[in-house]
């Protein structure tokens, strides 16, 4: 509604309102005067007649009020009246108001913050046209696909409107003021039209542009356009140099556009994908396949068709096309993070429940103190519904206060969450307080206010009128029901807090277990960076080996460096290449059953820099060069898997037996300890380390197109002091050779390990914060109840003491009540946790969801806290002077 329309409807209501008042007044006056006239006819004097008429008519104001109620106009007026009253009540009790609003702000704010993350990450559709129809087609639902297979699927299927493919490509941008190593994708021409997003300026690729020789166009994303071209609209048609080749800029995508959404998420540019010679390859799996379902075709139908197609292809080309899975794109994007986020949402919901219980406590206690006010109002004719309504209005006011503060907290909270969130949470950059989050906040505030306000309102309104007034304000008419409700609140607070604490405890144990995982290498004091030669004069194969050697040597000689070396891809951070090989002297394996391994290329010094121990044999040496016989180091897992019970040292393997004749044989010269490769919590795969300086791909002189994939090295240096401090001199060492070298991914190994554990740390941190808040609230809750009830029992305690009860008896009397409540809450909480903790099984590592140690420790700890919370009021009760207590009130 516009401002104007709102104003008009308001005015109409107000005008109608005053007319109704006039009508009512006139009508009732007419009634009374007519009756009086009739009485006067019977001979009653005028004054007396009017008096009698008014008397018999009854309360005119009450009648009017009921008329207004009947038509419903008085709603707003009553609301304003109640609000005024509520605000006065708040002003009279500022401490109460501030505490209650703070507690509510915590609960509502935390929930809104988490909701905004869940909304942005899980609930919203992906930002493509009709994104629910988009799917991915991947091996095992995860692994990339070979070009020839993609071409067959694309041409044979009838389920998809379009099927496109994307290849990872990280080129060097040169020719501008400074070189930069970028993340990009090579995409088939049909891919962008399939997404249904138009470019901000320029155009998408047109058919024919992904053919060999025509693939020299580039589309930029908004960020890259702003960063390197200052958002200049004249970039269209201009050339840029990527990996030494000129590409023409044809388009810029709009702000916020991201592709691909679940992998290569940082891609900033896209070029057409001409498969070249690889178009016939069924081995080099590198493509991610995206498709759009045709209208009327269901996911099940598409899956069935793909199963049929891949089944046929597998017959034709054994060892390929196995385990092809069609997954909705959204599921692929959010699949990993869905459970953790839902667990967090549930946890923060618990916090809100505890918050409600806590404020309800406070209101109950206050309602008791306000009995007299209620009694007076009841005596003056207020009905119960009216009192309930007034109390609820006050709760809403309090809730709104909490909600407003909660909004500020949520805004801060989302910033905190985004800063804290692990890099693998998709779309997290879009998180913020928007209209949906605001609506959520509004709803949460309303429901919360009713939630914590209803019970106190109902209780307050059910005051036994005459008792309260007669008691002259002693307000001692605490019913059993009231106590029962309070106890119930404390018990539920405890149960909820216990569940949250167990969740946090399980995450802490998970994190500890992850921290105890042996990476294989020693990540402390290690810094690493990627130096890319593409587009620089060092890209020349004739210079590359010399340059790499000199660069490593120069880094090694930097002050504070203990050891240095290089590898193609850094473990845990870099790419992961798999490559099958054959073992000399064994029968040729069937297609698809070759021994596989993670394929790495290392220079001398890498193992020393990483402190990755060699269990057996020797390291690669400077002498292992292109003229020397080929060598390879394998990891323990590969040794166990492929040479069980044998000594692998001296055995020979080949990666090119299919292509080269005779094949290049590499002799196993050492066995390295298993190191973490990709997934911190995962098992080690077989791994092979080739000697970089005898590898033609690495040196760029293999003549294959694939050479561009390794136009970079990852330098690794072990430092004596702070590794991060070495970054500037290490960069300078590289740039002293050539200013055109692109340097990227400057990271410390500790940072890499921390990133690998960012998600469990995020979950642990949040759950711990929630649990801590819950613990504080529950403790305050039980403290409040116990001290309140102890103060109510001052008289009783006085009697008991004067009859000979010892101080210890009094202590027991008070603490016992608290212990019972805590015990009941703990038992309920343990059952709840047993039911719920399995939902977070996916988040755990090295600990079972029903881990007895965690359960026992948390329950015992919580019990202890409860005892402490009860001890304070108990100590106060022990110090009661019996004589004073008997005189009390």
């Amino acid at each position, binding site marked *: 509604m516009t401002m104007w329309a709102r104003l008009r409807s308001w005015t109409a209501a107000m005008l109608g309102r005053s007319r109704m008042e006039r*009508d*009512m007044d*006139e*009508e*009732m006056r*007419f*009634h009374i005067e*007519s*009756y009086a*006239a009739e009485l006067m006819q019977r001979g009653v004097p005028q004054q007396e007649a009017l008096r009698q008429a008014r008397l*018999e*008519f*009854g*309360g*005119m104001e*009450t*009648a*009017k009020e*009921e*008329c207004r*109620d*009947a*038509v*419903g106009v008085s709603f707003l007026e009553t609301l304003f009246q109640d609000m005024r009253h509520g605000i006065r009540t708040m002003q009279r009790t500022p401490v109460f108001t501030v505490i209650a609003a703070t507690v509510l702000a915590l609960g509502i704010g935390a929930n809104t913050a988490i909701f905004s993350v869940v909304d942005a990450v899980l609930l919203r559709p992906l930002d493509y046209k009709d994104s629910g129809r988009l799917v991915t087609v991947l091996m095992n639902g995860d692994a990339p696909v070979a070009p020839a297979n993609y071409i067959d699927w694309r041409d044979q299927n009838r389920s998809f409107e379009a099927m496109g493919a994307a290849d990872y490509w990280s080129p060097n941008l040169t020719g501008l003021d400074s070189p930069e190593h970028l993340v990009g994708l090579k995409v088939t021409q049909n891919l962008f039209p399939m997404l249904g997003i138009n470019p901000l300026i320029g155009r998408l690729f047109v058919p024919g542009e992904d053919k060999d020789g025509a693939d020299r166009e580039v589309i930029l994303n908004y960020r890259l356009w702003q960063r390197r071209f200052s958002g200049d609209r004249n970039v269209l048609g201009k050339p840029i140099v990527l990996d030494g080749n000129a590409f023409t800029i044809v388009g810029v995508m709009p702000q916020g556009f991201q592709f691909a959404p679940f992998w290569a998420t940082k891609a900033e540019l896209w070029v057409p994908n001409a498969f070249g010679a690889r178009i016939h390859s069924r081995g080099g799996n590198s493509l991610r396949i995206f498709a759009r379902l045709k209208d009327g075709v269901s996911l099940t139908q598409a899956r069935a068709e793909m199963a049929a197609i891949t089944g046929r292809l597998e017959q034709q080309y054994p060892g390929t096309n196995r385990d092809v899975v069609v997954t909705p794109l959204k599921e692929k994007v959010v699949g990993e993070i869905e459970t953790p986020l839902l667990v967090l949402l549930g946890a923060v919901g618990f916090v809100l429940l505890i918050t409600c219980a806590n404020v309800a406590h406070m209101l109950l206690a206050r309602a008791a103190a306000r009995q007299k006010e209620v009694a007076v109002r009841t005596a003056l004719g207020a009905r119960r519904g009216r009192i309930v309504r007034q109390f609820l209005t006050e709760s809403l006011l309090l809730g709104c206060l909490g909600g407003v503060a909660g909004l500020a907290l949520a805004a801060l909270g989302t910033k905190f969450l985004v800063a804290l969130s692990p890099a693998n949470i998709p779309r997290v950059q879009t998180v913020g307080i928007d209209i949906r989050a605001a609506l959520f906040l509004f709803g949460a505030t309303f429901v919360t206010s009713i939630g914590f306000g209803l019970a106190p309102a109902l209780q307050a309104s059910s005051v036994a009128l005459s008792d309260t007034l007669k008691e002259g304000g002693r307000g001692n008419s605490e019913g059993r029901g009231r106590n029962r409700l309070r106890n119930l609140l404390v018990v539920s607070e405890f149960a909820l807090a216990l569940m949250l604490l167990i969740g946090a405890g399980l995450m802490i144990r998970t994190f500890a277990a992850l921290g105890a995982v042996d990476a294989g290498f020693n990540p402390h004091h290690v810094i690493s960076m990627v130096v890319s030669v593409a587009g620089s004069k060092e890209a020349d194969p004739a210079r590359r080996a010399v340059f790499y050697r000199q660069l490593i040597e120069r880094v090694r000689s930097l002050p504070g460096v203990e050891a240095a070396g290089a590898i193609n891809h850094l473990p845990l951070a870099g790419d992961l290449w798999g490559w099958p090989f054959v073992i000399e002297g064994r029968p040729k394996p069937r297609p698809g059953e070759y021994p596989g391994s993670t394929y790495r290329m290392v220079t001398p010094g890498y193992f020393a820099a990483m402190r990755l121990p060699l269990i057996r044999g020797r390291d690669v040496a400077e002498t292992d060069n292109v003229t020397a016989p080929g060598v390879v180091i394998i990891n323990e897992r590969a040794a166990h898997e492929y040479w069980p019970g044998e000594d692998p040292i001296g055995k020979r393997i080949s990666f090119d037996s299919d292509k080269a004749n005779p094949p290049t044989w590499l002799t196993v010269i050492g066995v390295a300890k298993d190191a973490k490769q990709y997934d911190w919590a995962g098992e080690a795969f077989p791994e092979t380390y080739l000697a970089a300086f005898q590898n033609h791909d690495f040196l760029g002189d293999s003549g294959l197109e694939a050479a561009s994939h390794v136009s970079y090295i990852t330098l690794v240096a072990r430092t004596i002091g702070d590794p991060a401090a070495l970054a500037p001199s290490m960069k300078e060492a590289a740039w002293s050779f050539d200013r055109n070298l692109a340097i990227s991914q400057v990271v410390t190994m500790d940072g890499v390990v921390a990133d690998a554990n960012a998600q469990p740390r995020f979950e642990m941190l949040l759950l711990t914060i929630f649990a801590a808040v819950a613990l504080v609230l529950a403790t305050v809750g039980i403290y409040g109840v116990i001290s309140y009830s102890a103060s109510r029992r001052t008289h009783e305690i006085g009697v008991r003491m004067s009859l000979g009860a010892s101080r210890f008896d009094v202590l027991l009397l008070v603490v016992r009540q608290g212990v019972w409540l805590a015990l009941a809450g703990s038992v309920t909480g343990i059952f709840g946790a047993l039911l719920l903790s399995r939902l977070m099984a996916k988040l755990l590592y090295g600990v079972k969801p029903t881990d007895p140690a965690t359960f026992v420790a948390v329950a015992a700890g919580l019990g202890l806290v409860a005892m402490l919370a009860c001890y304070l009021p108990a100590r106060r009760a022990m110090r009661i002077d019996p004589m004073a207590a008997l005189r009390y009130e």
Partner: protein
Amino acid sequence: MDKQLELLQGTLDLLILKAVSLSPLHGYGILLRIQQISKERLEIQQGSLYPALYRLEHQGWITSEWGESENKRRARYYRLTAAGKRRLQSETDRWNEMTAVIAGILQTTPEEL
């Protein structure tokens, strides 16, 4: 005058509908009409008449307009709407049925059981 009967819960609405179904009446007139027909045997709290009138009008069973009274004063006249007519009929049927059932129960003698 005999002792007046207190109005049964919820019957005032029915009486008002009946009263205005005979001819349009103002509030005071409705009171007089009911007392006249009942031979003054029902006790009606005069003030309670108006909330009932407003409620019935709000529900659309009666409608009102300002007119001139017998003594030439401005008065608000109520009359039955079509919906009100149907309502009166169904309420009357329900009332008759109810009284018959209740009466039947009350007349039951031990022999009949």
